């Protein structure tokens, strides 16, 4: 290590020469904008398409879309990069990380960015829950990107086999009645759901205008307690606990694992993200007919709106002025009706603006693929209330874990619904307090 032989010097200089040769020439004048995202496969290709379309549309900026792994992996990569002062300009963060990003002190709010660079976007044209979820004090903090909401799917072939008319259930009572008939008719699973906490707890509370956490679900200040052990939450879980016991509800795991059961043609009634449409179209092709419908309603409770999931784009602090300007221009392109309509059509995510919905209607996309309309119709049919504008919880990921852990205990019959929810509230209280202690 100490000695410097002529040979090692030669090797070093050769290596240096090779490195210099590998650098791009001085011709590059475009400002580079790094966009880290978490979408893979087909969706990842679509993200790449957005970047290349934007790059082709102007000559000043070059957006580079880089896949960084799953949502948590992408967030972790961004955190590590930020700490090393190497942050990308734009990072895609899932809804679970919203409070983390808001509290981070590491971001530049989108509304601020747009104001700084005099880029006008009509935020009021955004679909209600999409806007509220990511706004604070009426100002948008992160750029809405891929949003979806839970909807109901049903297997028409299994409905026919069970002697049911081709009509999806509208209430949970009907879900129960139909699921029982489906099972009696030979279906392996009457009703099942993917994303247990997001669909059955988070969305269902919002959909019935029930509070999920204190401080208006964390929108008026840091949430400190969950409120899901009220009459609605208990009734919801009691229903499904009974369903699990009687055999008309099948629990098929966390995340989107249960989608395999729906895609395999086992389930009569199913709830999951509207972004599942594309996938189900492919898997069910030539095997079974299916339909979509708005989520079922629980009799005796008011109506709110369904909430969204998915991810948004956050702008990291520390960009040079010309880079920030490029990000603002890029977001303007993202919000354009042309891009929104195209994106929603090819991915199954929600179009984020009403203008894009109109454009899609005009172009006949919805007549060709009526399923794409279900989620939009469901959201536009209702009014967004304080309980359904979204959820903003610190350490949201751990809270989902705590909820799903207890849901599993309840469905397995280990605890009563009330006990399970009380335990969830106690556990998540500790988690929320820990977060609050950090930002007090």
């Amino acid at each position, binding site marked *: *290590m*100490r000695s410097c032989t002529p040979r090692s010097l030669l090797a070093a200089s050769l290596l240096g020469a090779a490195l210099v040769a590998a650098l791009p020439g001085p011709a590059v004048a475009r400002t580079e904008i790094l966009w880290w995202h978490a979408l893979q496969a087909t969706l990842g290709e679509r993200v790449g398409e957005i970047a290349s379309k934007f790059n082709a549309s102007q000559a000043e900026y070059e957006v580079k879309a880089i896949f960084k792994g799953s949502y*948590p*992996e992408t*967030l*972790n990569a961004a*955190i590590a990069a*930020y*700490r090393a002062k190497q942050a990308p300009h734009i990072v895609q963060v899932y809804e679970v990380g919203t409070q*983390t990003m808001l*509290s*981070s*002190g*590491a971001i530049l709010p989108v509304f601020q960015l747009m104001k700084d660079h005099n880029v006008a976007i009509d935020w009021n044209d955004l679909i209600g829950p999409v806007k509220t979820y990511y706004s604070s004090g009426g100002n948008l903090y992160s750029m809405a990107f891929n949003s979806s909401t839970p909807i109901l799917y049903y297997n028409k072939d299994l409905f026919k086999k069970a002697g049911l008319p081709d009509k999806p259930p509208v209430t949970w009572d009907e879900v129960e009645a139909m699921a029982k008939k489906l099972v009696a008719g030979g279906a*392996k699973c009457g009703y099942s759901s993917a994303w247990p906490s997001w669909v059955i707890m988070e969305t269902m509370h919002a959909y019935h205008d029930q509070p999920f956490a204190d401080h208006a679900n964390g929108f008026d200040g840091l949430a400190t307690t969950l409120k899901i052990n009220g009459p609605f939450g208990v009734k919801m879980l009691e229903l499904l606990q009974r369903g*699990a016991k009687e055999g008309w509800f099948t*629990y*098929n*795991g*966390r*995340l989107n*694992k249960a989608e*395999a*059961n729906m895609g*395999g043609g*086992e389930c009569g009634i199913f709830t999951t993200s509207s972004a599942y449409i594309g996938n189900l179209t492919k898997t069910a092709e030539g095997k079974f007919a299916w339909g979509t419908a708005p989520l079922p309603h629980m009799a005796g409770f008011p109506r709110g709106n369904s909430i969204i999931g998915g991810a948004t784009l956050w702008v990291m602090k520390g960009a040079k002025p010309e880079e920030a300007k490029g990000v603002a221009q890029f977001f303007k392109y993202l919000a354009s009706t042309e891009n929104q309509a195209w994106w929603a059509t090819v991915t199954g995510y929600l179009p984020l603006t009403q203008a894009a919905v109109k454009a899609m209607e005009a172009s006949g996309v919805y007549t060709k693929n009526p399923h794409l309309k279900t989620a939009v119709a469901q959201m536009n049919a209702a009014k967004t209330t304080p309980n359904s504008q979204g959820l903003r919880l610190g*350490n949201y*990921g*751990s809270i989902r*874990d705590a909820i*799903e*852990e*207890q849901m*599993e*205990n309840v*469905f*397995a019959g*280990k605890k009563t619904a009330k006990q399970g929810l009380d335990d969830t509230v106690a*556990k998540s209280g500790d988690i929320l307090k*820990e977060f609050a*202690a*950090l*930002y007090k």
Partner: protein
Amino acid sequence: MKRTVFRNRWLPYALVAPQIVITLVFFYWPALDSVRLSLYRASPFGDRLIFVGWGNFARLFADAAYLRSALTSVVFAFLVTLIGLVLALVLAALANARIRGLAVYRSLLLWPYGIAPAIAGILWLFIFHPSYGVLPYVLSFATTYQFNWFLKGWVAMTLLVVAAVWKQFGYNLAFYLAGLQAIEASVLEAASVDGAGPVRRFLAITFPLLSPVTFFLFTLNMTFAFFETFGLVHSVTQGGPGDATSLLVYKAWKDGFENLQLGVSAAQSVVLMAVVIGLTALQFRYAEKKVTY
């Protein structure tokens, strides 16, 4: 051992330097940083760092979920080690017999070791899967009990144990086979002449002579079960149902990387570090003296 003498007094240091540097940068530095971080309540982006002393550890040991996770890990590690070693020993004894095509059998038995834990988990997931798995299908003819590991903790645990045992099997077998072949045939022959049957010979001679190997494999399998099963849990059960398969190493990762509670996660890593240091110390103190390679 032969003592090598270097003429240049710096050369030996230069030769070991890369290894030392790698160890310092990739092992000691992160380890020390974990210890430091375990004493803080830290925000994900690093803008808040509040010293809490032993607070994270105190929280950890007062947390019922963590204690359950510790118990789950111990149960898991013992099941994997005991079942794994017994199976490997029995099959090694069989594979040590003089039979036709022995080399083929031996190679086939060694195969699973070449598979990553995550992949092993996925393979067994297909066999156990409640809707398309072979095992629940076969069992459905015998019983109406639902072997759904999405809901039943013990089924999920069984799945993980089976996958882990299977994955380590080749390794254990290789060591036992080597151990068996090192036993002098004359000793066993002498026992035969004295009238000892195959079982007696195994219990009185083979097994005791294999004890150094057994001890070595015991610590090794324990270490594997405690620290290298992250991929398995991550790809198959994600700690569920409930927290039935939330092993310590998985929980530490989850709290740190998914839930972004860095201080608590660092405290968990420190606890795990203490366990692995303990196991390694045990290994060196007892095994090194008895095992002759």
